[in-house]
């Protein structure tokens, strides 16, 4: 099945970026199925993954309405190539160990929670409604990942070392959370989107409080990775999409 091509307007690009963040991170969490360290955590990871895939579905459906070319949520998720994906590089990073998965969730949720809360005042009624649902879910993801980061950081020498490694590895991907470009600026000016840069202090406050409880120090901001919003991804997204999309590419329209 060949890929679809979209004529992206600023609003469509904006919605796809948020949908892709949610789908890719949700898919990453689904990869823990059957492999989590505790049965309890198996369920927690699946729950968070399903929350995110639910957010992605609502956003893709809206993107399809915005585009108005008959593409539904499945077409947008399964039939776009890697370069058409607009997610943050942070969310496509492989699960690694449990510490890395929890740090990735913390770094994303500490941003997404205040982001969706602010988006509840969006002038776009559909996005405001999606934000209201996503904010409650993301608030729990933040709490859950924060509690684990505290326990692993303030745990054994081994768990502490793993959390430190995860933080060092993922920190260069956090700059992208606050990036704005012409698309974002146009949406912000229209009152549809909120300025992510304005959330940087909130994010730093949340993350530094968790790291302090976890007996960890906040990494220094150095060179930051960038590119996901424009479709320039790390080597990991292609593999993720291959698994995610293979069924629909092989048997187009398959349902069960």
């Amino acid at each position, binding site marked *: 099945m060949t890929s679809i091509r979209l004529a992206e307007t600023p609003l469509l690009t904006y919605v796809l970026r948020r949908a892709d963040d949610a789908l890719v991170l949700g898919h990453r969490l689904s990869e823990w199925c059957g492999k989590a*360290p*505790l*049965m*309890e*955590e198996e*369920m*927690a990871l699946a*729950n968070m993954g399903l929350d995110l895939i639910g957010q992605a579905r609502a956003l893709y459906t809206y993107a399809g309405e915005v585009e108005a070319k008959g593409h539904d949520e499945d077409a947008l998720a399964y039939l776009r190539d890697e370069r058409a994906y607009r997610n943050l590089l942070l969310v496509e990073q492989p699960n690694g160990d449990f510490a890395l998965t929890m740090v990735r969730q913390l770094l994303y949720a500490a941003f997404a929670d205040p982001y969706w809360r602010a988006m509840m005042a969006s002038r776009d009624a559909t996005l405001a409604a999606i934000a209201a649902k996503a904010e409650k879910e993301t608030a*729990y993801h933040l*709490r*859950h990942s924060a*509690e*684990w980061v505290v*326990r692993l950081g303030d745990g054994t020498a081994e768990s502490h070392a793993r959390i430190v490694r995860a933080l060092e590895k993922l920190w260069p991907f956090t700059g992208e959370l606050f990036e704005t470009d012409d698309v974002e600026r146009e949406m912000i000016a229209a009152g549809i989107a909120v300025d992510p840069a304005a959330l940087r202090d909130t994010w730093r406050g949340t993350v530094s409080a968790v790291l302090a409880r976890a007996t960890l120090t906040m990494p220094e901001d150095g060179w930051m990775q960038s590119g996901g919003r424009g479709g320039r991804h790390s080597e990991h997204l292609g593999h993720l999409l291959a698994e995610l999309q293979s069924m629909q590419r092989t048997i187009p329209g398959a349902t069960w």
Partner: protein
Amino acid sequence: MTEPAASEPKVPLWEVFIRARNGLAHKHVGSLHAADATLALQAARDLYTRRGEGLSIWVVPSAAITASDPAEKGMMFEPTASKVYRHPTFYEIPDEVGHM
């Protein structure tokens, strides 16, 4: 509490109680493993309220529960079997009272 098998995580066991609606009592729904009370509460939320079952959760360390001994059930529970007069079934209920 019995020792967990080597393959199980050595984390404490907790009993979970859920209140489904206002005005109802918390009801025992199951158990789970968690390292501490905060994580136990989160795990209870993730395991036992996935389908809108609850408005409130209690978690209690299983070790804090004192249970009756099944071997003593004769002494504990059988004597009540012959006390039928304790059931309120010997009264004439006037029809006007309706369903009780």
